[in-house]
């Protein structure tokens, strides 16, 4: 299982990357894409909208199943990856390159509540 050590993770299988400007990029993990199988539909959150921690903010559907995407920490969506809904298979090709949206966290310290790669490896047992 490939879980980059420079990322943070949630128990609900999102990855979080801190960008130099303080915003957070968010996607789903390699483990999640593997469990889902071929991804065929992605619904992203609304840019400009604020979400609470743990709130369902998007949907990812594979041939097999639908799964919600949850907001890792409270924040406001600043940007969404507009190319992704037209090429959802990018998530299968490289889950850590396929960022879905970026947020400005309400409280940057919340990042400390997330799992590191080793902690996530304990959650993502197949």
């Amino acid at each position, binding site marked *: 299982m490939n879980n980059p050590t420079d990322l943070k993770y949630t128990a609900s299988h999102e990855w979080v990357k801190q960008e130099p400007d303080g915003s957070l990029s968010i996607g789903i993990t390699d483990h999640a894409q593997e469990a889902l199988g*071929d991804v065929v539909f992605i619904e992203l959150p609304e840019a400009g909208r604020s979400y609470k921690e743990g709130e369902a903010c998007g949907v990812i559907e594979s041939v097999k199943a639908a799964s919600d995407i949850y907001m890792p920490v409270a924040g406001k969506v600043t940007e969404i990856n507009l190319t992704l809904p037209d090429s959802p298979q990018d998530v299968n090709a490289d889950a850590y390159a396929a960022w879905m949206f970026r947020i400005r966290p309400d409280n940057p310290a919340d990042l400390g509540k997330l799992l590191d790669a080793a902690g996530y490896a304990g959650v993502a*047992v197949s």
Partner: protein
Amino acid sequence: MAESQQGVLKTTPLNAVHRALGARMVDFGGWDMPVNYGSQIEEHHAVRRDAGMFDVSHMLVVDITGARVRECLSRALANNVAKLTQPGKALYSCMLNEQGGVIDDLIVYFFREDFFRLVVNAGTAEGDLAWLNHLNTRFGTGLAIRPRRDLAMVAVQGPKARERAWQALPDTRAPSEALQPFNGALLAGELADGMIARTGYTGEDGFEIVFPAALAGDVWKRLMDAGVKPCGLGARDTLRLEAGMNLYGQDMDASISPLDAGLAWTVDLKSERDFVGKAALLAQPQSKVFVGLILLDKGGVLRAHQAVITGQGQGEITSGTFSPTLNQSIALARLPLGVQPGATVRVVVRDKQLAAKVVKLPFVRNGKILTA
């Protein structure tokens, strides 16, 4: 995302082979089965364009022998075994309860007047056996009903399936070369008690091959060496859905009449013959149409149990998926009588209502899209 749970799952003779190939295994009705070996969509395309194979050994072969087999099956099955006159001929049928609900759907093969073979679904197998034994007693037909857990079954499907199967298993060529669709032949020699049938669940040409379980690993390897791609139950589901074929437990069950599940063509109500469930079907005529849906809007994937809003009232999706061949979401749906192919309906997907077009089934047959 639920992880597959390990426990007392049943395994087929190919379980170790699937694991060695890196298959993603899931709990499929109590069986530890491969859902894919990588990309489900690639496996799907392999069957539509070339040749793929599925381990379907979880399904059960049931051999029924005795002088009065035809008499018993004539009363046990909704389709009419009188249609089976040539040895090797197969018939698709529902087995109904007294209320006209579907206990199972199955294929029955006629080999000799005293020997018929059934292939039944995995999840219903134990109930089917109990029911068949009950009917055998009730009709006093004195049959031997023998489940063949000693046999394995592999479905080889696709436009190149037959030639690849013959290349891999040369002994199967002579008995199967002249087989017409929906016919099977018993095998001899090393494959004795086995069978090769020109049947399947994908809408493509091909074979379902039954053989002694001890040979499973060898048969699988020879087929792989001949270029047949291993495919999981995920691709099997998208292929059968495109082919407009029902899945037991999803598109119909013991509470659903075959007439409301698009299976009226398999129910013989015209002849004088009496069969279990006939009186109930005559008393409750068809009350739903069973049709295909193609999603027109973007916004998700059609799935089982989503509500369908039509001009004639509300209906329900029974199976839905993303169709790799149409590159769009498709579904099978049970809708109010009067909804016609060509109509536009609305499907409730999460918080939205998405437009979908009603079409006649199937969506795809022999690699061609029929619903364009």
